[in-house]
């Protein structure tokens, strides 16, 4: 039994050594096109606590950096304080640009408020929330606008809405969502967004928004979002966004240039060793008892 315990421990240690060695930041060169700085962004990221996520705000910033993201929005469920911690930390360590945001999770709609400073209440209509976001200088983005949320986006709300998520992990999981998100975005010309709705599982930046901005400052990013200067790709390369920028990006091979790097063998071996080690510790490492049949 000592052998099994030893092997389990060794597997776990091997997993940690390989995983820590492979834990490197992706080196990405800055991209410039047509006089714009092209920034890789993910504007729908949740952190621990309160938002069903696992990484604290500082770890979120480090992970965004590791994934090669230039700009992120931290969007706590109905609060902004965690995002403010993240922005403070990122400024300290020279991390990616962090927009303070909120995912307004109401009973009838979900909406991203980007570039705000104070919490926007979920106890109001979508139109009223949008007005409040604009009052704070932010932009209002419909988060994963599935058809069940459409009734909340009445005429007044649609007039004020700045953008909508058209690419989101849910479109790869549900065929219905794959139809509904682009259909909602086609209601009017608005900023196309691709976000991963990161809750601590899977890679951050799985779905990205490419922002065509003057530079990577918060102000420039917000200006670009207001102007609709974004391009978003589905995984097969189908593009959404400003038609001129989509053409510019195609000419310069933006989609090909920004394909995600798949995890290498080191990552897989580390994961395998880690899981096998944990299983081994659970079965062999927490003690043994001598149990007789007479007891059962």
């Amino acid at each position: 039994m000592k052998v099994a315990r030893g092997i389990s421990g060794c597997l776990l240690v091997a997993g940690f050594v390989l995983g820590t060695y492979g834990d490197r930041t992706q080196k990405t060169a800055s991209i410039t096109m047509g006089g714009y700085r092209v920034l890789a962004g993910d504007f729908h990221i949740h952190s621990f606590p309160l938002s069903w996520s696992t990484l604290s705000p500082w770890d979120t910033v480090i992970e965004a950096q590791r994934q090669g993201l230039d700009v992120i929005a931290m969007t706590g469920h109905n609060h902004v304080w965690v995002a403010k911690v993240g922005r403070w930390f990122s400024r300290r360590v020279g991390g990616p640009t962090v927009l303070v945001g909120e995912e307004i999770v109401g009973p009838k709609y979900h909406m991203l408020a980007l570039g705000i400073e104070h919490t926007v209440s979920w106890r109001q209509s979508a139109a009223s929330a949008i007005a409040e976001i604009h009052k704070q200088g932010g932009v209002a983005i419909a988060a994963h606008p599935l058809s069940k949320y459409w009734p909340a986006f009445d005429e007044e709300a649609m007039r004020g809405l700045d953008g909508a998520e058209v690419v989101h992990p849910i479109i790869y999981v549900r065929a219905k969502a794959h139809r509904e998100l682009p259909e909602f975005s086609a209601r009017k010309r608005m900023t196309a967004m691709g976000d991963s709705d990161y809750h601590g599982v899977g890679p951050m930046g799985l779905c990205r928004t490419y922002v065509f901005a003057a530079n990577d400052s918060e102000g420039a990013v917000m200006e670009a979002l207001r102007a609709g200067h974004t391009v978003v790709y589905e995984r097969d390369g189908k593009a959404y966004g400003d038609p001129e920028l989509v053409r510019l990006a195609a000419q310069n091979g933006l989609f090909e240039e920004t394909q995600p790097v798949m995890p290498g063998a080191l990552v897989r071996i580390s994961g395998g060793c880690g899981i096998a080690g944990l299983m081994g510790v659970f079965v062999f490492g927490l003690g043994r008892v001598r149990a007789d049949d007479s007891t059962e």
Partner: protein
Amino acid sequence: MNSSMRSPDVWVMLRPAAAYQWLVRQGAGEGTWGVAQRPLFMVLLLGCLVSLVTAGSVSVRLFAAGAINALFVPLLEIGVLAGLWRSRRTASFSRTVDLFFMGHGPWVLWLLLFCAIWAFASPIQAFVLTGRWMWLLLGVVLVWSAYVDFCFLRYVLRESAPRACAKLLVLRVITWGVGLEIFGGGSLWPEMVRKLGI
């Protein structure tokens, strides 16, 4: 007579009533390490979980990030257990904690499966798999772990069946209530409003 050596955690998971009745008579496994090892294993598991589902590997950075945030889980469980134990001191508190954490086997299996999916499947495949099958399995684990904890209350704290049910409810409401509030409190109320159609 079969006197084979076995893992108490696996035994409790598979035959909780028999295992707890036998284990509570033994009184072994005390001492600092004996008491701390299972709560610490939970922290190890949760830290590794965060690393595996985030990056597919176990790195010190992500493990530490997850383990620190998950520390409240075993502490909360121990806190609530202390309240239940005060009125039924059938074994020392350290032994009671150890026996309680032996009953986490169904969760360990479910979490390891969750880790394996995120570590080996592509992100899209993982979203599909965890979006469908893992929720079904979660239902099984909820019932299974409730039965294991019921047996713990019945045979370790020696409660009558109705009182064991009541205390199981208290245990679940407090630990899950506080846990859910910390983990996802920002959207709990509006989601409840939506589900109840208020």
